[in-house]
């Protein structure tokens, strides 16, 4: 017994001494660190124009860089809107609606200490649009040019004024410019001068590769350490031009973790403080262990996009409306998706400036749906067979197969016989562009590809305007509605924000009234985090502002 007691005391002493060993570093270090597990398989590109969609913009775009315009990410309740960034004001020319004057913010410096000015803007526009510029980089144009499809060039007026030109009048330009991140020309030039290569093109490629390892923007975070495919460490930029957005933590560590269970385990074991998109079936366990789940409606739509070519069953508006009334979206949210979705009643929901006032109310109304189908000539003994092409996985697709099987069962009650054509995500993405008339559609009557709804072009125009039919853009089903075309043209040529928003709202309402899509869900961008994470605001956006986030000791 005496020995047992002595052993116990030894064990306690040993445990205390070991604990002190582990505690010393944490006491010695006053640096606050925020560790985040991303869903990306790799660190999004760091050279200014990130890849990996909006997750790239979120982590390596909006952190290290700024655009001329930016999103207001400060509110969890209001829709995110565009606000001044590196430009303080902008205006289209009265006598020429293809020319815009942007006034630049004075006193802004890149992380390398060089000045941000009109030359830097011209240089950054040229990096993706001017094939003759030394800094022109083909690897950056794919993720940039399509997000500002009408921008042609930039011209310096004076050090703090720049003129941007579009190929046609386009009031969406200031919104599109949130996607053009300003990299430091001075830093790049220094790397170019040092680079080795057979010709100017090879030197330019080498300079961009070097820039990606040691980036320089004007953003609230600076690049500190970069291990490809493993981690990116950012430190706070004390000299950031917007003092309100100087980060509250000293260091942010970004870790790619593509597997949802691995992310969840990393959070639960304390390896990270925050994970993006935890495994839905682990939400209860995560909350039970004292972690919090942050979520909010995102500008994202999970739809079926209908074929509207001759002979399509969806050409009958009663059928389109019936499908929209036949889905118990709340049931899908509370059951299948464990609360991780917002029922969709259009591309934009009430409260959004582009929502409008649709006459047709999308909701779950089974009797009304069945009535419409009977009016259209269908019933229990005469079902309407429709085929939808979807994928088994994919960025933003949420849980495509279980969700489509849910729709299959729901729509069966409205006399639909739904067939699923499941293909690989990248193939589906390619087919999306080819359209319903292409053999790759495999006889489908609808396609299930999720989309971002951040700006009017991506959210509405590319699907609804008749001239956006394949091969031009994503009007997969060849929608051809003169009202849509007229409203798109009007929106693009209305240069007062308020009036432009009203036209866009009218367009959205018209698309809902026409039941242009089967609107099902909006993603909520779930992220799980430790109770130590304070000050986080999840806006109604794909993006978040990491600056106000702090870590409790």
């Amino acid at each position, binding site marked *: 017994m005496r020995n047992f007691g002595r052993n116990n005391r030894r064990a306690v002493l040993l445990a205390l001494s070991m604990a002190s060993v582990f505690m010393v570093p944490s006491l010695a270090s006053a640096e606050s660190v925020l560790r985040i*597990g991303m869903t990306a*398989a*790799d660190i999004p*590109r760091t*050279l200014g124009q990130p*890849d*990996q969609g909006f997750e790239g913009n979120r982590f390596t775009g909006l952190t290290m860089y700024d655009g001329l315009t930016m999103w207001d990410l400060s509110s969890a309740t209001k829709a995110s809107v565009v606000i001044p960034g590196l430009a303080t004001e902008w205006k289209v020319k009265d006598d020429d609606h293809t020319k815009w004057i942007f006034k630049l913010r004075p006193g802004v410096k890149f992380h390398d200490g060089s000045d941000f000015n009109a030359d830097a803007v011209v240089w950054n526009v040229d990096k993706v649009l001017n094939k003759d510029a030394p800094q022109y980089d*083909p*690897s950056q*144009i*794919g*993720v940039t*040019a*399509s*997000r500002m*499809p009408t921008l042609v060039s930039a011209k310096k007026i004076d050090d703090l004024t720049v003129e941007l030109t579009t190929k046609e009048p386009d009031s969406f330009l200031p919104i599109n410019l949130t996607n053009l991140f300003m990299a430091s020309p001075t830093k790049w030039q220094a790397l170019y001068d040092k680079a080795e290569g057979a010709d100017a093109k090879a030197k330019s*490629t080498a300079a*961009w*590769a070097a820039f*990606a390892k040691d980036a320089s923007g004007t953003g609230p975070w600076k690049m500190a*350490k970069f*291990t*490809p*495919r*493993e*981690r990116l460490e950012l430190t706070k930029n004390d000299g950031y031009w917007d003092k309100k957005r100087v980060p509250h933590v000293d260091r942010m560590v970004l*870790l*790619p*973790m*593509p*597997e949802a*269970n*691995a*992310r969840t*385990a*990393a959070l*639960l*074991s*304390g*390896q990270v403080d925050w994970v993006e998109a935890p495994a839905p079936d682990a939400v209860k366990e995560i909350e039970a262990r004292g972690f919090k789940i942050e979520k909010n409606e995102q500008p994202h739509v999970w739809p079926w996009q209908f074929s509207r070519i001759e002979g399509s069953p969806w050409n009958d508006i009663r059928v389109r409306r019936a499908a929209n009334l036949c889905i118990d979206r709340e049931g899908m949210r509370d059951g299948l998706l464990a609360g991780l979705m917002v029922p969709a009643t259009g591309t934009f929901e009430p409260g959004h400036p582009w929502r409008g006032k649709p006459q047709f109310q999308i909701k779950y109304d089974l009797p009304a749906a069945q009535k419409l189908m009977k009016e259209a000539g269908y019933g229990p003994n005469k079902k309407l067979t429709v085929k939808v092409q979807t994928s088994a996985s994919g960025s933003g697709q949420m849980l495509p197969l279980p969700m489509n099987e849910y729709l299959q069962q729901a729509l069966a009650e409205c006399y639909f016989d739904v067939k699923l054509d499941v293909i*690989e*995500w*990248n*193939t589906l*993405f*390619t087919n*999306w*562009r080819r359209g319903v008339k292409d053999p*790759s559609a495999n006889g489908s009557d609808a396609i299930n*590809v999720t989309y971002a709804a951040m700006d009017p072009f*991506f959210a509405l125009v*590319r699907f609804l305007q008749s001239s956006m039919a394949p*091969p*031009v*853009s*994503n009007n997969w089903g060849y929608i051809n509605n003169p009202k849509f075309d007229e409203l798109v043209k009007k929106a693009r040529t209305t240069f007062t924000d308020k009036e432009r928003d009203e036209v866009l709202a009218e367009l959205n309402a018209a698309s809902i009234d026409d039941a242009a899509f089967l609107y099902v869900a909006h993603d909520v961008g779930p992220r799980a985090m430790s109770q130590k994470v304070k000050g986080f605001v999840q806006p109604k956006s794909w993006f978040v502002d990491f600056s106000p986030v702090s870590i409790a000791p």
Partner: protein
Amino acid sequence: MLAYIARRIVYVVPIVLSVALVCFLLVHITPGDPLVAVLPADASQELAAQLRAAYGFDRPLPVQFGLWLWKAVHGDLGTSIATGRPVLAEVMRAVSNTVMLAIAAAIIGFSFGLLFGLIAGYFRDTWIDKLATGIAIAGVSVPHYWLGMVLVIVFSVQLNWLPAVGAGPGGSGQWAWDWEHLRYLILPAITTSVIPMGIVTRTVRALTGDTLSQDFVEALRAKGLRETGVFGHVIKNAAPTALAVMGLQLGYMLGGSILVETVFSWPGSGLLLNSAIFQRDLPLLQGTILVLALFFVLLNLSVDIAQALIDPRIKRA
């Protein structure tokens, strides 16, 4: 012996060429756009054509293959479409991490496999044999990713003893064998080791049993040789086959286990392959498959030569 080695090396050349051709064609005949990683679905035709030309995807397939092979022979596997980084550097960094994991898994798997195999062989048809065989069968049968998740739940989430993911406190960087890095290696290495452990156990058990039942063992014992001496003879007879099995298993492990590396976010060749597939990064996919295939071929070559050195009868066969 030198002629045998030269002949084996010559045989490798058509194999490597075939591997190169197959991995080049495999990624080109699959549906979808090779530039999907950088080309948004709403990109204009002009932009798509411009990028295809920039990456050389507008040229005829044989020309693309010829250029790719020529560059590959000169150590240039191209540039990753997704990251813009050289493929060779990406692959070698990942392979280095996988080699580290494979060595750790091999040490665990082969040590326990040999131990269990010898014990089972010596005590054939006893409960010890049944226990060792049972462990071996479980090792071969259990799904990697399931075991990995169970280990993470127990040792990371519940007990908080070991990290759940990653390759080190500050990223893998370079090989480090201190405790801070080794603790990241333990769970993936155990998970990776169970299959080779099972296979080696079964192989060594069978070889030990067969050798012990041969007449020369009885003769050795009759001559008064001690059991340790007999044991030496048993090992010598079992070694070539066991070595071949070990070589193959090491080859599989160097190929990287996509599932294990994904579960543990271990930055090896399996995870790289996974990323390349999901990002549809063709140059990276081709480069990774080629390098891994070359590893496998060279490892087999090394094993064949080692076998011939140990047992001269093999080179005559």
